[in-house]
């Protein structure tokens, strides 16, 4: 559905996208995971025909973004990172406007938007600008789907949205798979990565890895430990100086510690810390998550 080959885009001397290769299968829910400034939005802008690539090609639905932009525009639904509906128009007026622009009638019962519409229908006469963050995103999704696109581009749809709405939003995305929709969604939240069928990790304009979340986690080849004490932050620097340490990062109140040495155990770590004068430290082996893999890939 989406084929990206050797795609690069620079802004002056800043390389926003660097030789990106990406293939997205039909009806896939594909996640683009990366920190702010990784180049996610630039990639979305190019796929949505808002910007031209500096070099390389990108095809959506088999149409080249540079030469067949109009064909693409008819077939995609795009939700930019910034809320971009008419804040002074009501929910219903926004949906009707986008339906009219694409020449379709707004059907509340269409299987594509039925679930979303049920959630926003109680607010249908409220101006879009007066909705909560989560509701705004649901409305934007509804507007992006109203013309029955086959490719859905969602640029950080859940940024700044409360956890409950985020969960609901992702549940909606899951159901779209059965509706013949290919979805490319970006997010800075690692927990959302697990909800995608396939993810690409991106940083500084480069794709670090592409695979299913499970496969990416399986590729993690180091021993991972959780470390926690009453003063976890005070442990970061000593642990980074430990000769067996690969990386050490803070995850909330605990630390994730990766060791180079496959044979090392939690006992070695506790011993080392006690030698340094840190008592009452909990250390336990951990299964890696996407975030650990991402940090690992970023470092190498």
């Amino acid at each position: 559905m989406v084929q990206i080959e050797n795609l690069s885009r620079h802004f002056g001397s800043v390389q926003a996208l660097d030789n990106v290769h990406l293939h997205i299968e039909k009806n896939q829910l594909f996640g683009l995971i990366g920190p702010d400034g990784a180049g996610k939005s630039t990639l979305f802008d190019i796929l949505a025909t808002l910007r031209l690539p500096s070099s390389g090609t990108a095809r959506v639905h088999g149409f080249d973004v540079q030469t067949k932009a109009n064909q693409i525009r008819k077939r995609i639904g795009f939700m930019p990172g910034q809320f971009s509906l008419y804040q002074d128009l009501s929910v219903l007026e926004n949906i009707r406007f986008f339906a009219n622009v694409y020449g379709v009638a707004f059907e509340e019962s269409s299987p594509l938007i039925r679930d979303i519409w049920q959630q926003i229908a109680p607010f249908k006469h409220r101006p879009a600008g007066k909705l909560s963050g989560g509701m705004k995103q649901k409305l934007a999704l509804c507007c992006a789907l109203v013309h029955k696109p086959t490719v859905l581009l969602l640029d950080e749809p859940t940024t700044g949205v409360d956890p409950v709405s985020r969960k609901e939003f992702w549940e909606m995305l899951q159901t779209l798979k059965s509706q013949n929709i290919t979805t490319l969604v970006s997010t800075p939240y690692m927990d959302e990565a697990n909800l995608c069928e396939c993810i690409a990790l991106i940083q500084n304009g480069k794709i670090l890895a592409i695979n299913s979340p499970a496969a990416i986690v399986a590729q993690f080849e180091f021993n991972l430990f959780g470390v926690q004490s009453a003063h976890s932050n005070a442990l970061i620097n000593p642990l980074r100086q430990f000769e067996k340490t690969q990386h050490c990062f803070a995850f909330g109140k605990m630390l994730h510690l990766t060791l180079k040495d496959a044979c090392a155990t939690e006992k070695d770590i506790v011993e080392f810390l006690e030698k340094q004068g840190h008592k009452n430290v909990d250390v336990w082996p951990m299964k890696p998550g996407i975030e650990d893999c991402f940090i690992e890939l970023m470092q190498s």
Partner: protein
Amino acid sequence: MRIVLALLKKEFLQIKRNTFILRLLILVPILQLCILSQAINFEMKNLNLIVVDLDKSPSSELLSKKFQASRYFILREITHSQTPALQEMEDNKVDLVIVIPTHFEKELRGGQSPVVSFVADAVNGMKAGLAANYAANIFMEAAGELAQQLRLPITAKSFNIQTTYSMWYNPILEYKTLILPGLLAVLVTLVSGLLAALNIVREKEMGTMEQMNVSPIAKWQFIVAKLLPFWLIGLFEITLGLLVIRWVFQIPLVGNLALLYAFCGIYMVLILTLGLLISNASRTQAQAMFLTVFFFMVFILTSGVFTPVESMPSWAQTLNKANPIAYFVDVCRRILLKGATFEHLKTSFLSMASFATLSLGLAIWRYKKTHVDS
């Protein structure tokens, strides 16, 4: 067509919902026409005057009274010595000092010509000129009366100058008739041009422009849908303005209004596409506002609304050939005041149509759905 209708429906919904714009549309023309036409006036009133009466005769007293009765002057005082009066002028407290010489009446009776001097503060040259001229007129009138009273044989011949008025000194009404059609032109330009420019930049600021650009809306559809509402607003504004001119100021509109609307229609295309070009060049509403005000200010000040084009240096007059507002002001005046016909205005129509076509083409060319740079 369906897309254009959808876009138009959205535009009107937004305008209808924006009470600020609605109030602006109604109040601005009425207030501007009423206030500016009163405030901008080259007729001087309330000029401060001191009469230095060195004669102290019934004749000199009559002369002073005449000035006292005038609506142009405020007679500060009548003194009998010249120096303090001139000192007052130094202190900016008085605009004109009239000195009636000793033996004024005596010399008049004796058939001589006494010399009455007018001293005007010429820091503001225009004001001084007007003051001296007003004073001269009053003086002529008074002198005529004086001559009758004193039964001097010189009246008719010497004082018939008072019958020749030039435009400058005509009553207020003349100036208002001149300024109102000009103000009307400025008003229509500012309101619709600015609204159009801001409207499009607002779509950029709110991010809705991106949604427009990823949709299959064609360039011409977007531009037509953006221009049409403000085009109609412009025509609404000129209608409102004409009503104010006709019914509030009671100025007869002698010309062919259909001709005026036709010209205004072409002119609006030019102004709105200029607004579109400005919005294309700016990222924020503040930038667009600044650009619009800057360009329109230059256009307006050199357009001949406030100062006659003929008094500008020749290079400025040449530049005015490319000043759309100058054309519109000129056409408004010629149609509304002189009743000019299409035959008279053919060249103006032709120039305006070429400007509008050029600007429209430029606007369509400059508006890009896909950004090549940054």
